[in-house]
């Protein structure tokens, strides 16, 4: 848990990539589509940003490269998987965000001081 907190807070691109891989193995183009779907089209990840982040996530061991899939129509595609470490980091980040959301809701629900 302590190690997972070392990566926190995650950048929006990293968070979205880890989140998209949490549902299963995906190739690069699939990650881009999944990110667009998750954010309802508000956050579009370009290939340059995607592979720059994947490069870092692979180096840190948060994501693993699965390789090619014989059943894929495009043999150039490689698949990526969320590692155990990556899942722990994502869980820690989600918990942190939950705390932020809870605190934000509390503050927003507080009654405003009335003017005299």
């Amino acid at each position: 848990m302590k190690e997972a907190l070392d990566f926190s807070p995650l950048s929006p691109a990293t968070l979205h990539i880890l989140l998209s891989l949490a549902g299963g193995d995906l190739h690069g183009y699939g990650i881009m589509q999944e990110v667009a779907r998750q954010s309802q089209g508000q956050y579009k990840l370009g290939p340059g940003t995607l592979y720059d982040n994947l490069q870092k996530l692979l180096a840190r061991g948060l994501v693993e490269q699965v390789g090619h899939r014989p059943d894929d129509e495009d043999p150039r595609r490689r698949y990526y998987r969320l590692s155990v470490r990556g899942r722990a980091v994502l869980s820690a980040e989600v918990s942190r965000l939950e705390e932020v959301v809870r605190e934000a809701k509390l503050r927003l629900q507080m009654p405003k001081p009335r003017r005299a």
Partner: protein
Amino acid sequence: MLAKIYRAIVCLHPPYFRQRFAEELLSIFDEAQGALGRGRLVADACFSLLRQWILRSEFWHESVAVVPAGDGVPAFHMLENFRPRPAALVDGALLSAVVFTLVCLVMGYAWNHPVLIRIVQPHWGDSAKRQSHLKAGIRNQSTDVADVPLYTDQGRVFLVFKRPGATSQPASIPAERPQPTVPVSVPEQVLRSYTGTYVAEEQVTVSVSETDGQLAIEVPGQPRSPLVPLSQTKFVAPALSNSTVEFSVGNNGIADRLDLQGGALRLTARRQRDH
């Protein structure tokens, strides 16, 4: 056309990035629809190219895999496996050589073209003893050495010796004192008001006298020098290395102070009151 440009940009990425992701980048480009979508991908690839070369130097080359050591075999791990590329080392060496050469040239120029500043020499030792020596006209060796003008260029110290037929100052030193080109006419009455004996802090007595409308000054240990007027209160003493003598006139119209500046001489003397 855009596909060729995109492929060229991808090929310009760092080798390790290109090796790992080039095929996937091209695959994504093939999925893009329309010229606008492809144009965006080309722009994205340009940004990626800059980012990878400028900010991601640690990923330029494949990191060495750590092989676990067997029992009893010491294992070594590199904390940082980043090494600068050979071209960067060559660039750094060239830049260092250019900077070093420039610094040497600037230092050499400054050495050969000094900006000389005159050093004002302080009077050392017992002032009373010095005054007695001056009055007796004794000039020992140390006094002679102290009379040689000293110059500095904020590092080196120069001794400038006078040579017959040569000027008293180096050519690069601007004349500090104005030369009397057109003598100013000062009334004899004013000249007489300057005459008298002036005493400096070191008990050095300076005499100012007037003969036939010509003012003269006598400083112990120095030759008697006529005073050529530069203004009503300022004079130059040619025999004292063109030192300037300025009189300060009090409220009663009589000079009560004398400032002598120039060469090794620099003193302020107050008029000795007649008892």
